[in-house]
């Protein structure tokens, strides 16, 4: 249980500073590991109840394309990294930690990551919300729910065939669209091109 929690943390906060903090946390928890194992069942149940209520209370930001379009056209000298993903999309889940790491590392340099979920509406409660809460996603998550895809996909990018993951990086009027997966290095080097 403890180990699983750690590996998720490591996955999602993989950058130098946080890693150091985590290492210290790891040392401390390792020292207190035995004590923790003795944690009584009542505490475990309370933890689970806390997560359940946290999921229940979590409010999604849901837009149709008209409502969403403003996120693609901000002109505030900030670099926006807009990633289209869904919980059912394996390569999206695989690259999500890199977007989280990017957000953590560059948020103080005028970079904002926005994760745009394309999950099915009937799975918001059972899949999407639990995913966001359990993985402690720190980047802003918004949900795009608009079935008229042939209308809105070309407005995101004329070159987009519609497969995900897909990402836009832009600052003011300068933008690039990527219909592909990233690792952290690739993502970081793309963002750096917008940071001059």
């Amino acid at each position: 249980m403890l180990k699983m929690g750690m590996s998720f943390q490591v996955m999602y906060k993989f950058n130098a500073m946080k890693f150091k903090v985590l290492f210290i946390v790891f040392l401390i928890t390792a020292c207190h590991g035995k004590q923790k194992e003795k944690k009584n069942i009542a505490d475990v149940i309370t933890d689970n109840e806390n997560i359940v209520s946290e999921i229940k209370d979590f409010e999604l930001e849901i837009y149709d394309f008209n409502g969403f379009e403003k996120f693609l056209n901000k002109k505030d000298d900030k670099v926006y990294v807009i990633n289209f993903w869904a919980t059912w999309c394996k390569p999206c889940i695989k690259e999500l930690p890199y977007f989280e790491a990017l957000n953590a590392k560059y948020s103080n340099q005028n970079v904002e990551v926005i994760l745009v979920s394309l999950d099915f509406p009937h799975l918001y409660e059972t899949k999407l919300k639990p995913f966001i809460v359990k993985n402690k996603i720190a980047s802003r998550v918004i949900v795009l729910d608009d079935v008229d895809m042939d209308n809105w996909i070309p407005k995101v990018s004329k070159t987009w065939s519609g497969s995900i993951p897909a990402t836009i990086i832009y600052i003011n009027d300068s933008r690039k669209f990527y219909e592909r997966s990233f690792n952290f290095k690739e993502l970081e080097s793309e963002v750096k091109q917008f940071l001059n």
Partner: protein
Amino acid sequence: MKNSIKLITAILLVVLISAFTINKTTTSDGYAIGDMATDFKLLNVDGNMVSMSDFEDAKGFIITFTCNTCPYAVAYEDRVIALNDKYAPLGYPVIAIMPNNTDVKPGDNMQSMQARAQEKEFAFPYLLDEGQKIYPQYGATKTPHMFVLEKTGDGNVVRYIGAIDNNYKKASAVTEKYVEDAVDALLAGHDVEKTETKAIGCSIKV
């Protein structure tokens, strides 16, 4: 000295020009409307090899790149079955091709494809793109991805590329049936009006 500068400029020019041409060819992967689609010989869930040339009486084909594991593909399964029920008797059978790498997606391997085909009683071929050689030629990028082909004396011409319709959530809420409209037009001897549409789908696993 002058000569060497000229030489360097010439080399630079060649490099520049070739860089642009390479770019051009890589961005135009896959078929455009009007292109001739390649035939294939792929393993079906019933153990036989299937090609378009096997369908002597066909007037064309509704090719769908699809799979077991993509929620969008699953959402459209019943509509693909309905397309075959409606258009196979009119000369436009459905041929489904599973393009994913089955090492990456074991849920899409031949055994799982057979199970799915049996469960849903597919009346059309469900083929495995063994070695992933066919989908890149078509330019399929996701599941489901539809290609309507018209059989002509010269071969099978691509007439429509894209989605099945404009509402993945609810078949009853659909207002535009892209594939049906395309096939209806071809059957009536007309041009297809909407030749390309876009839809979200699962990227093909390589």
